């Protein structure tokens, strides 16, 4: 993997360098999908421009639904951004397609060290070839958001919520609490006689699709705390474990909650009415969701949002997925000193601290995280439920393998089949072998 001389994008469009006029060389284009983070990065850009007179950062925000298609199209057209926000499930494919610059070989970014960031974050962005393709920008974990009005009315305290435990046999205190928080249309609670599970007014747990391959904000905290892991290796696994009985019994139990009436069934809320909307509408008491949604939940009218730790599982421990985004540099922009500088700046203490003060996400550096915690605190939001797992080391990473898009394409319908159509989780064994077949293909 040597020089950056390969002519990429040979798809009938050649190697176009017409953009390299003087003005363009001084302007860095940057893409992100999360509009909530736009103000933070705009502030960073202003600081960057101040510190580097003559350079300019041009930020575009494109919604997630179209982000990747447009990014791919832009790479074909040669209009791709110099730097873009990257997702862990996507970077392997882009690295394979040879469109990302290895940051460890560039002067401005080769100094990125794993230890500069919260543990585990930077390592995820090292490709199978050993090169670093992303500079960590933030991290997130999953916790329970709940509506304090409803838990108070049910007599469930914050301490109780923070010390729940589950198991696949009887569901443990977690399932009992969900049952108690569930109320049918006649006002009977889920643990009371005569409870009508077909006419539920408030579900204990909000629904959020079936979770596809990772179940990040659905079942990952349960599967993880059952001691299960996605693949045979921590990174770049060659074999998925969806056929593991520990996984399948977790899934069976988790989606079984819907049949008992405690978890909102798949069919009850359509695609754009996620857990935040269900909580806001008073249709659910608890929602498992990511830290990036904190401001959204706390901003809902008519409810009092709080957070609690995910339950302890059969393994005797909690487990929450730790994931993070990173900034990738496109290969075409690798020769551009301004673009390199911007990537490096995005990963710097200064920028991450700035982003932190907006209190939307947790920046990847320690000081950035502290700034975010302080910003949340100023708004009266306690984010311990998200930070404690990191401090305690009870986190696990997002699965990183080749063929992530194919894995998702197979798992998404398969998991929906279990959740929406009541198919047995044992059917996932078949899906798993299809997935492993794909992973076994030579590249």
């Amino acid at each position, binding site marked *: 993997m040597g020089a950056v001389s390969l002519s*990429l*994008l*040979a*798809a009938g469009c050649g190697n176009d360098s017409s953009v390299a006029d003087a003005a363009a060389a001084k302007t860095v284009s940057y893409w992100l999908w999360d509009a909530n983070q736009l103000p933070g990065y705009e502030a960073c850009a202003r600081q960057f421009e101040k510190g580097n007179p003559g350079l300019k950062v041009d930020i575009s925000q494109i919604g997630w639904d179209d982000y*990747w*298609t447009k990014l*791919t199209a832009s*790479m*074909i057209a040669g209009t791709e951004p110099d730097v873009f926000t990257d997702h862990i499930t996507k970077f392997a*494919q882009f690295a394979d*397609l*040879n*469109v990302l610059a290895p940051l460890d070989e560039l002067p401005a970014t080769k100094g990125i060290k794993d230890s500069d960031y919260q543990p585990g974050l930077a390592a995820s962005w090292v490709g199978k070839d050993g090169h670093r393709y992303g500079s960590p920008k933030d991290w997130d974990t999953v916790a329970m958001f709940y509506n304090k009005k409803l838990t108070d009315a049910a007599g469930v305290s914050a301490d109780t919520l923070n010390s729940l435990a589950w198991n696949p046999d009887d569901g443990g205190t977690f399932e009992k609490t969900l049952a108690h928080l569930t109320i049918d249309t006649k006002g009977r609670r889920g643990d009371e006689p005569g409870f009508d599970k077909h006419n539920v007014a408030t579900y204990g747990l909000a629904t959020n*699709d079936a979770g596809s391959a990772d179940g990040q904000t659905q079942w990952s905290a349960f599967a993880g705390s059952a001691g299960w892991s996605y693949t045979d290796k921590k990174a770049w696994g060659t074999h998925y474990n969806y056929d593991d009985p520990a996984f399948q019994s977790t899934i069976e139990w988790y989606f079984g909650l819907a049949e008992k009436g405690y978890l909102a069934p*798949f*069919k*009850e*809320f*359509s*695609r*754009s*009415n996620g857990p935040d*909307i*269900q909580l806001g*509408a008073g*249709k659910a008491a608890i929602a498992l969701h990511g830290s990036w949604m904190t401001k959204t939940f706390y901003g809902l009218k008519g409810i009092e949002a709080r957070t609690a730790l995910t339950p302890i599982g059969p393994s005797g421990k909690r487990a929450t997925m730790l994931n993070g985004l990173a900034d990738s540099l496109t290969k075409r922009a690798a020769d551009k000193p301004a673009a390199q500088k911007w990537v490096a700046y995005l990963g710097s203490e200064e920028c991450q601290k700035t982003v932190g003060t907006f209190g939307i996400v947790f920046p990847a550096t320690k000081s950035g995280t502290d700034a975010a915690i302080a910003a949340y605190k100023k708004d009266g939001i306690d984010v311990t439920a998200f930070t404690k797992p990191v401090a305690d080391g009870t986190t696990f990473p997002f699965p990183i393998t080749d063929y992530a*898009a*194919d894995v998702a*394409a197979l798992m*998404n*319908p*398969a998991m*929906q*089949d279990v*959740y*929406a*159509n009541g198919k047995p989780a044992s059917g996932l064994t078949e899906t798993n072998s299809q997935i492993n077949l794909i992973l076994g293909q030579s590249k």
Partner: protein
Amino acid sequence: MTVASTVMTKRKPADGSKHADADGGSKPAGADRGDGLLAALFIAPAMFGFVVFLAWPTLRGIYLSFTRYNLLTPAEWVGLDNYRRMVNDPIFWSSLRVTVEYVFINIGVQTVAALCIAVLMQRLTKSSFLRGIVLTPYLVSNVVAGVVWLWILDTQLGIGNQILGALGFDHVAFLASNEWVIPSIALINVWRHVGYTALLLFAGLQAIPGDVYEAARVDGSGELRTFWKISLPLLRPVLAVVMIMTVIGSFQVFDTVAVATPGPGGPANASNVLQLYIYSSAFGRFQFGYASAMSVALLAVLSVITIVQYRLTRAGESDLG
């Protein structure tokens, strides 16, 4: 009237060559003193657009269906691999089935509803205000129609289900259950397109000469009978063309599904229509070669259906002439 009758007589000579797809070979009468140069001039811009933006991309797509192509590195010839994979791909077949189901519901309901509206407008009121109203949904884009209906049809929070609930019905998971998702998408698209279709049919009805109705009235024929015996048969050529056009469009349903179904394409693969599967293979999984092979299949399906439909409805003939 002379205009009409000359249309009839004058057009005859050219009729033999009307349908190029049916018989392309015959030369128009008097081709010897042709207008070749002039025609070339007149057709040049359209021809340019056709070749550059339609024909060439199609040929290129057919070529790519024989390759493995990830969009960013050069395509690599793999022969029939993609087609072999397609034949053995259960998701492809389920997509095709789902798409056909969608087309049946969409076209069935839309055609009947449009006919109804057209007849109502013709027999009840010709108010252009009313005709304007039924056309309004056509003014919003598919994406917007999908988003709005997603909001209206939510099982718990949508006004549609709130109304059902108030009337004493159970909630229906319009866009989140296997059995409803395709009918719902089909009906959403009926909502958007039915006014337009109705106006085309209305124009067709308007063109049926009044004395035909007059004769029916003299015979004492009722409204329904008149419709079956006169309006419908005389409308058939318009109806046939409208249906061919709408079926072709219907097979390419995409936006609404992409916006409004869980997944999208769910639950499971219940609404994974062909065009969505093609799209996600191409842009989600970088399998452009395979996506192209499926596009070729779609092209083939559309061609067969169009020809069959054309033959069945005898689109070229009117009972009037």
